[in-house]
């Protein structure tokens, strides 16, 4: 072994998290640094593990619904939606048109709310603090809509087996329309602050680049995959719940860097608005809850249902043994899979970029640890 001298440099090992303002919860990243350059990064997760998959083996299908609010608490509505779609398919339950439309509207609202929270935290990680509060201002309006329909703001317990808990409350459509009318102006506001901002571009362009093929190999889904130019959106590829009845585009990126992922999420918000507008224009009348038995006993078998959540492909693999409780529910959380790529993405970048890359993956630890 060579003799050590005073001029030798040592690698610095540093723990980012679990208590760190920019790891979006309780993610712990063990960074190996040479100066500020990242040589290696290791993700350590599990600080928020609540055993939801295990719990699901001891609850009835209906009792389970609110648990999935709490996996990805930022996108509680779509989480429940994904699970319910699976259960309804297994049971062969018909969902009335009105309920289907409202569900799509609410999941799209949820997508906007989730993207807003992502933009807010991503921006503040990079130092733009004003965007943070602007986003929360608009998110508040969506949460008000949630509260009006679901009775809760964050853990909404949004939908019920067979449809909705109740019909839209009085004035809901007007409030939703008002939001749809005003929101594009607000997105312009964020874009004004960030999209052409020199500093923002320099901080996000060519940071965390991943090619389309590589993204597929890592199993990445959602905006990070589309940021690399892969046209894969479950709402288009494998339409569920009636998405084929709506017109919308799937924004794609070119370079697969942080900036492209940022642009895509902004565009997705605008596309979500388009869908909501179509729902509001064509909302059918009728009941909002189909016929569903009080106790669900799906036939023996396995079923996988997946939706395009705000963060990517959210899947529920439900195994039924014919009883009122699932034998096993395995969740495919999009960010758990996306997070794997963190090590690959941050290598060679600087500490400041690690923060930007964690932000761009849009992780939610509640979903990763479950």
């Amino acid at each position, binding site marked *: 072994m060579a003799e050590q001298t005073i001029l030798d440099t040592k690698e610095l090992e540093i723990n980012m998290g679990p208590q760190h303002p920019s790891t979006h919860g309780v993610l712990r990243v063990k960074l190996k640094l040479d100066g500020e350059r990242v040589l290696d990064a290791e993700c350590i997760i599990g600080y928020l593990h609540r055993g939801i998959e295990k719990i699901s083996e001891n609850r009835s299908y209906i009792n389970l619904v609110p648990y999935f609010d709490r996996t990805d608490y930022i996108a509680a509505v779509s989480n429940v939606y994904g699970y319910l779609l699976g259960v309804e398919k297994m049971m062969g339950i018909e969902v009335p048109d009105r309920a289907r439309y409202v569900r799509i509207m609410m999941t799209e609202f949820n997508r906007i709310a989730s993207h807003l929270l992502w933009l807010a935290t991503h921006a503040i990680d990079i*130092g733009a603090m*004003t965007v943070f509060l602007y986003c929360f201002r608009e998110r508040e309006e969506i949460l008000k809509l949630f509260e009006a329909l679901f009775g809760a703001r964050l853990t909404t317990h949004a939908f019920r087996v067979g449809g909705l808990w109740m019909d839209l409350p009085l004035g809901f459509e007007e409030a939703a329309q008002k939001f749809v009318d005003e929101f594009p102006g607000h997105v312009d506001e964020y874009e004004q*602050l960030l999209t052409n901002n020199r500093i923002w571009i*320099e901080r996000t362009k060519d940071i965390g680049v991943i090619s389309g093929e590589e993204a597929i190999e890592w199993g990445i889904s959602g905006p990070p995959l589309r940021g690399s130019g892969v046209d894969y959106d479950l709402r288009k590829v494998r339409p569920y719940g009636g998405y084929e009845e709506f017109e919308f585009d799937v924004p794609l990126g070119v370079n697969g860097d942080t900036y492209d992922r940022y642009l895509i999420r902004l565009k997705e918000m605008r596309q979500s608005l388009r869908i909501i507008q179509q729902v509001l224009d064509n909302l059918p009348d009728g009941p909002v809850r189909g016929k569903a038995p009080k106790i669900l006993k799906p036939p023996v078998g396995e079923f996988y249902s997946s939706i395009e959540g705000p963060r990517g492909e959210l899947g529920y693999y439900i195994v039924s043994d014919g009883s009122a409780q699932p034998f096993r529910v395995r969740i495919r959380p999009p960010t758990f899979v996306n997070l794997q790529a963190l090590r690959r993405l941050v290598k060679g970048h600087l500490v*400041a970029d690690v923060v930007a890359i964690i932000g761009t993956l849009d992780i939610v630890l509640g979903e990763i640890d479950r």
Partner: protein
Amino acid sequence: MLEILLIYAIIPLIKITAIVLFLSGAIAYLTLLERKVIAHIQVRLGPMRVGWHGLLQPIADGLKFILKEDIVPSRSDALLFTLAPIFTMIPAFVVFAVVPFGPPDMLEGPLRSVLTLVLEPAAVESVVTSAIASGGFVTDINIGVLFILSLSSVGILGIILGGWASNSKYPLLGALRSTAQMISYEVALGFSIIGVLLVAGSLSLVEIVQNQEESQLWYIFVQPVAFVLFFICAMAETNRLPFDLPEAETELVGGFHTEYSGFRFSLFFLAEYANMITVSAVGVTLFWGGWLRPFPNVEWLSFLDFIPSVLWFLIKVFVFLYIFIWVRGTIPRYRFDQLMHYGWKVFLPLALANVLVSAGVLLVFM
């Protein structure tokens, strides 16, 4: 004897006390101003509970800091750990020794009316004609600008020491960044000031302002490039967004002051604001004509003289500070290699070119 004592001891001491007290208050309320301005930029209200519209908030904050437990981490270097905040705080105050608030005869009138009560007319005359006694500044030294530059470097030394003495990883990275930042920016800052010095022909801040009065133009119009460079470097110097890398709370969790708490932290915190005021005051003196009203010597604007020179100075400093806060509310943070890139590859060549061009123009046309 008494008049000498008055000129060199009593009156300067009174001025120093006044400035230190005023500055302390200004720093405290600058924190409130920042919170309020940022809040309104971000569609919030900011502090509203303590006093009318949060006016007593700085006092409450100060009390809280003083009452907190004084923690020195067991693995830190206790002596340096204690000294570091003081190192950052003191220079910001000392710089005001050479910053002129008003013209050299600012206090002549009031001094005369007070002193005639106690002294003979000849002695009164000798006191009021001395600039040290009656000037709107503590002292006017002929190397004022150099004095400021050297002191501002000491201030950053405190940050480096603080990060180093904490013996912890995040502060260490903060200190490293601070070092990189200091080296990258002090050079460009110095060169941007040289442009002004060439035009003014003096290192004394008082004379620089007087020259701006003579030439009827603030130096921002004579040296616009230098001003822009100075302003950007000033932001880097004071660790403000977009250059707040040594702190970078979302990356380094507070950077150099991660391990600091209570009163020591408050010293660091206040030093940042003190530095903002200092840099603004220097900037105003060098580029915005110090205590002068806009367009000095333009006759038909002379009605503006009804505002005393000190007030003009303070108004300009306020505007400068407001821009600092405004910038913080608007733009994201640079990465530290990008900052160095700009420091060395953009600002330094620009500043050098500015010096060359200014010198050439002066040589040919003057």
